[in-house]
């Protein structure tokens, strides 16, 4: 009996030591079913690689993301690793929430080797880098092959330049007797992806840049031709208008819009809807190609210190490894953040155009994405609803946005 007791105690001791020896880190992300399932599987794999680390996975609804995080900080119950939108990094850093990635672990070479060139810029704030993505998103042109056939256009040949885009859109637009659009040639929705297209793509194609290098000064107002091209689609060529069929996504999914510019995150929904669509790189202009990229990334919070910090570093490196990126594309449908992984999918008819777009993509550094989206929406509305000139509309928007930027940079003391 005594011996049993002794053995039992010994076993208990060993067990408890091994439990204590395990480092536990907490990972937070918002709830998106495929992502949650995939991460659960990845955590199992990670724990096999590092048996002394345990990862607790916590999810919550997207809508409450910031409130949840906000509440966790004073309570001291926050995560060690958090998945956040790259555009929120400045806010989280200035609030004292994130810690910079240690430079010895995440050198310039590490970034150059593992990520597209817009990634290190996108996760940088005031000279330091804060997060690593698993996957990225970019824009492309979706076109409806059936509607192309109906308009006697080659269903396998999407427009390659902005000029072709306009010509084809005109042929694809249908009107009723009163001149109302019943089928849009190209959906135009600044509140969707349209504002990114205007800002990072059209502005550059018409010979300008949307902001200065560190995104502290607005400069798109110098190329009103970019806005004019967009609003001409609505007012001159009349191939679509904002709010047609409610929005661009509904219009394209219900086959009432023949073309749309949208993100890689739409692929799954369109496949499910059973639409005969194709995906092409965004049309070029003046020989200039451009694209907008965005991503969610994993950052380390100030909660993680000592052993936990080491574990957190291993975990985010794991989540950005080649293998995880491949699994991510397969399970979640988002694009790999590493060009060498992306290379393998370049000939994929659906993912290929998005991946090629990543090579020349820019990730806007937002300080207040909603406010910055609003100014572009307003610029378009001013032109097509109020008849204000694109020059004036772009100028007014730039002034409002500049104030948003100035207030932000003033608040962080730069």
């Amino acid at each position, binding site marked *: 009996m005594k011996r049993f007791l002794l053995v039992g105690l010994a076993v208990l001791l060993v067990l408890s030591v091994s439990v204590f020896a395990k480092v536990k880190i907490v990972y937070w992300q918002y709830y998106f079913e495929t992502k949650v399932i995939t991460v659960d599987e990845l955590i199992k794999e990670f724990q096999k690689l590092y048996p002394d680390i345990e990862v607790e996975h916590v999810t919550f609804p997207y809508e409450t993301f*910031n*409130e949840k*995080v*906000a509440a966790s*900080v*004073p309570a001291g119950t926050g995560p060690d690793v958090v998945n956040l939108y790259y555009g929120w990094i400045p*806010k*989280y850093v*200035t*609030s*004292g*929430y994130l810690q910079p990635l240690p430079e010895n672990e995440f050198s310039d070479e590490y970034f150059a080797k593992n990520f597209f060139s817009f990634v290190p810029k996108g996760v940088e704030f005031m000279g330091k880098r804060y997060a690593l993505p698993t996957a990225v998103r970019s824009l492309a042109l979706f076109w409806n092959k059936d509607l192309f056939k109906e308009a006697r256009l080659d269903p396998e040949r999407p427009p390659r330049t902005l000029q072709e885009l306009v010509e084809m859109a005109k042929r694809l637009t249908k009107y*009723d007797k*009163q001149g*109302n*659009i*019943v089928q849009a040639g190209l959906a135009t929705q600044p*509140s969707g992806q349209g504002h990114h297209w205007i800002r990072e793509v059209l502005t550059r194609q018409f010979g300008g840049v949307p902001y200065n290098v560190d995104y502290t000064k607005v400069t798109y107002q110098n190329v009103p031709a970019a806005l004019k091209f967009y609003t001409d689609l609505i007012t001159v060529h009349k191939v679509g*208008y*904002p*709010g*047609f*069929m*409610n*929005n661009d996504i509904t219009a394209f999914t219900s086959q*009432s819009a023949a073309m749309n510019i949208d993100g890689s995150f739409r692929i799954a929904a369109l496949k499910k809807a059973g639409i005969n669509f194709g995906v092409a790189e965004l049309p070029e202009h003046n020989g200039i190609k451009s694209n907008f990229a965005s991503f969610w990334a994993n950052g380390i919070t100030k909660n993680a210190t000592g052993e936990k910090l080491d574990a957190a570093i291993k975990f985010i490196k794991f989540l950005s490894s080649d293998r995880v990126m491949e699994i991510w594309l397969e399970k979640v449908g988002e694009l790999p953040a590493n060009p060498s992984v992306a290379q393998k999918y370049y000939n994929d008819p659906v993912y290929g155009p998005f991946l090629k777009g990543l090579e020349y993509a820019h990730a806007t550094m937002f300080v*207040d994405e*909603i*406010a910055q989206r*609003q100014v572009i*929406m*307003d610029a378009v*509305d*001013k032109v097509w*609803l*109020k008849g204000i000139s694109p020059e004036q509309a772009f100028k007014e928007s730039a002034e409002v946005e500049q104030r948003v930027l100035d207030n932000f940079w003033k*608040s962080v003391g730069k």
Partner: protein
Amino acid sequence: MKLRHKKILTAYLFLLVPLTFFAFIRFYPMISAFYISFTDWNIISPVKNFVGLANYVKIFNDSVFRISLLNTLKYVAYGVPSVIVLSLILALLLNNITKLQGFYRLIYVMPYITPLVATSWVWRWMYQKPPTGIINNFLNMLGLPTRSFLMSTTEALPSIVVTTVWIEVGYCIIIFLAGLQSIPKEYLEAARVDGANRRQLLFKITIPLLNPVIVFLSVMQTIIFLRIFTQVYNMSDQGSGGPLNSTKPLVLYIYQKAFKSFDMGTATAATVILFLIILGITVVQLKVLNKKVEY
């Protein structure tokens, strides 16, 4: 201890539960909102720096805040009289019907009991341009020019008012009917014997006696229109209160500042302003409208 005292004590003991609840759920956040309006809190940061009246100066210099304030007043000015007059007329008509009264009442109250988000979206679709919008399709069929409705900076706000009136009328009718049925028939009969015509009956007897109901409904409807949010959020593109801020009410401004721009300081400052407006208007309404009528 006397039994009476015991009873009182017991009553307070039971009251303590809802009182504590109210203190923590209602009053504590209210007071803390007042406090936050004097700070630069950004929702994530644990630090709240005291900034004095800076947030108030900031919002009054913000043209979007001024537009939202004006829009809110427009919602009240267009909405409240329309709801009260329309529901009073309908209630008077319904009061005369003896057959199927319950059925009609159900029909009118239907919009009110339907979830607001659902009604907003149905109206949003009805207001669409052809080929989806049923109203415009109808105009089209009659050969009349189509309208922009929610896509126009001048028509969008009235369009949302129409939807809200359509929703609120049902509730007001029910309250008016209850009020009408509580007017003693003797008064009307006595007046009729004295030779009063229908017009006089309405304006000299019925409406004055309905005054408490009218006051109650005006105050409630004013508050409802001052706090308008859900309809606008669901009926404008991406909940923006557009086009060009033309439909944005104060509450949406507050929501965007707080949960989109994370600027809790200015959001709570705007909340305090809205609170003062509601308080002011309600006090004035109660003073002006609440006249005792006795016969």
